[in-house]
């Protein structure tokens, strides 16, 4: 009996070893990467590690380390993982290299929409997209005869009905944690209203009717949220869903798989992914991409090896093996029900997050200033005016607005 177990374990490890060697070539050049630490990056870097001579740093604080690490000569990491906004500092400092020739050499399998182009040059290869979209409990809405909410008015009406029926006291969840999350909610709403964040010479332009409308919608939503919404981040909302405490939320597509995780979730199969609710102009959400950049400060041989390794890491095999981990940009990706929300939002015309150095400053100012409106300390116009003032102070200090 014991021998059999040992033999079986041996066989398993041989099989695992076989899987380990699934890379199509052997990498000879030592390479390192610095990326964020979520599940999709783990899948990609694991696939890259199969080729050997590669070590990955998965670090949620990557954005603080990346600019300095890439500015070193030679760069401390050859491969970096970035998103819309985190690419900006690297791009501005000139520490990431154009990839056009490498794409030509190794990038036959890339889809055209994976190429992130700045000024005509390919600067990054996107591997996945992420967006906040509506998730709702299909069983509860069906019981009460509520149609799938298409706009925020629908969402609010549905929430009122659910509360009235006594099903839940707080039917809505939201990533309203003060700081980055709260600002992101405003960005979503304001984009949905078709607003522009910055005008001529990086002047702020959020104090207008669209901004007020966005704030009012946010406040209306909070009436149906657990009163501690200012401390609720993505993980908290995800848990509220999993524990059956909320019926609707505008949540990240990357959290969708957790709803059907039987180990954690009590609502397996009961959560439907739908398009982000429509604002006046387009869906109230922003599309984010995550992708890979290569450092400027390394030899061309290293860059060649690094790009080849990246292509191996984000190839169809990896995507097929981790299909539900993310909304992959890959021909092999099978969009399932979990990706339906992100896809529907994009089809309805959701915009990309308007990343820029100035937007980074505005995002921080929004994150710090919005809570005053939601707690009732200020009215909408004052809140927006104060945020603009805070933005101008910070932008002047950063040199983005001339004095």
């Amino acid at each position: 009996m014991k021998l059999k177990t040992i033999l079986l374990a041996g066989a398993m490890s041989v099989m695992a070893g076989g899987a380990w060697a699934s890379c199509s070539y052997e990498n000879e050049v030592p390479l390192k990467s610095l990326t964020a630490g979520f599940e999709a990056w783990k899948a990609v870097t694991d696939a890259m590690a199969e080729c050997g001579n590669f070590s990955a740093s998965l670090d949620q604080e990557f954005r603080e380390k990346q600019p300095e690490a890439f500015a070193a000569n030679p760069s401390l990491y050859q491969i970096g993982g970035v998103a819309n906004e985190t690419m900006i500092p690297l791009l501005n400092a000139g520490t990431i290299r154009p990839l056009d020739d490498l794409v030509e050499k190794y990038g036959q399998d890339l889809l055209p929409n994976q190429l992130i182009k700045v000024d005509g040059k390919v600067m990054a290869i996107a591997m996945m997209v992420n967006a906040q979209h509506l998730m709702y409990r299909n069983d509860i809405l069906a019981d009460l005869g509520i149609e799938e909410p298409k706009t925020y008015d629908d969402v609010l009406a549905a929430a009122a009905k659910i509360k009235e029926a006594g099903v839940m006291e707080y039917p809505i969840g939201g990533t309203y944690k003060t700081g980055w999350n709260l600002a992101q909610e405003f960005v979503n709403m304001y984009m949905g209203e078709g607003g522009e964040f910055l005008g001529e010479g990086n002047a702020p332009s959020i104090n207008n009717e669209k901004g007020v409308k966005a704030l009012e919608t946010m406040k209306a939503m909070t009436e149906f949220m657990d009163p501690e919404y200012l401390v609720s981040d993505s993980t908290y909302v995800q848990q509220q869903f999993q524990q059956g405490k909320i019926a609707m939320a505008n949540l990240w597509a990357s959290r969708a798989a957790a709803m059907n995780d039987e180990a954690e979730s009590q609502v397996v199969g009961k959560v439907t992914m739908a398009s982000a609710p429509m604002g006046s102009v387009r869906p109230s959400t922003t599309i984010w991409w995550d992708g890979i950049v290569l450092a400027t400060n390394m030899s061309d041989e290293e860059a060649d090896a690094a790009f080849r390794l990246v292509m191996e890491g984000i190839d169809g095999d990896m995507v097929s093996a981790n299909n539900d981990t993310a909304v992959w940009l890959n021909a092999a990706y099978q969009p399932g029900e979990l990706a339906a929300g992100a896809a529907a939002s994009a089809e309805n015309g959701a915009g990309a997050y308007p990343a820029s150095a100035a937007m980074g400053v505005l995002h921080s100012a929004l994150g710090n200033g919005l809570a005053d409106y939601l707690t009732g300390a200020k009215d909408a116009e004052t809140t927006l005016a104060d945020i603009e003032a805070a933005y101008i102070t910070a932008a002047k200090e950063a040199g983005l607005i001339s004095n």
Partner: protein
Amino acid sequence: MNFRTFAAFVGPSVFMMLLFIAFPLVSVFKQSFYITQPIYETVEVETCTPGFLTQTCTTEEVSQPKLDEHGEVITRTEYVGLQSYLNVLEPERAWRAITNGEWNVLSTIDFWKALRFTVTFTLITLPLVVGCGLGIAVLINNAAKSIKGPVIFVSLLPFIITPLIGVLSINWLFRGDGILTATMEWWLQRDIALFAQAWTIEILMMLYRVWHVAPFAAIVFYAGLQTVNQDSLESAVIDGATRWQRMKYIVVPHLMPLIIFVSMIHLMDAFRTFEEVVGFSSQGYVISLQWLTYDFLVPDQAGNRSISRASASAMLTMIGIVILLIFPLRRTWRDHKGGH
């Protein structure tokens, strides 16, 4: 001790203090008067990002920092005088709010909001820490010899726990459906949301701070209690003094230097409160001066940080501590002079 020996003993410590305390302090002081920023130019750039099936390309004007021939960002450092201090203090807005008598407006300006909380937090926790510390010390002192060790150990526990972990555990106990909130809800038969308004958060923060620091005060006072003159206590008992009177007229005056010492340490620590804000993620309602400095320092997604304002607010925090310490220091100085 001759001077050479003295210098040999003190030298390394003075050197370390200069290197690790004085020098950074001077550097922060200097930075608060300068602004370093990249030189931006406006360029028109076409950017393509992935849509779901196709690509979206937009052409827009963006600000890009200029690079020199080595590919380094060109920066410019400029003397701005007190501008960063003004940016932190926002004196015009604050003065307008004060002259209009609008205290609620004043309390929405970051610095004044932080100052208001930091000062109330410091001053309210101070007597509580001293009081609780004294109470625990007397308790330990009166405990039977056999259980003294365990009692000291247990009462020291809160002080041993890493502050951030302590705050987080209190946060989790009371957050949303945390164990204690759920129990209170079950007991009172009503919904309780302790993290939905400022004052409940502030009370939790103060409770945490007192719980965390009282053991330190207690252990200092306990040491002091060992040196109380037993003869005075005995004669007081013979004179018919009650327990309370003995405490008030003999023990407390004897411990006074220690009480001032503990108060000073606490004033310095509490004025730099930080873990509470981070651990409770209370930024939406309550912020402290130290947190404000931290917030200026944290880079946003695009990598910008406000070093100058951070330096200015750090200097202001230090000035605040110095002002608070003047009172106990003056008293100590008077006692010191009187004693000789």
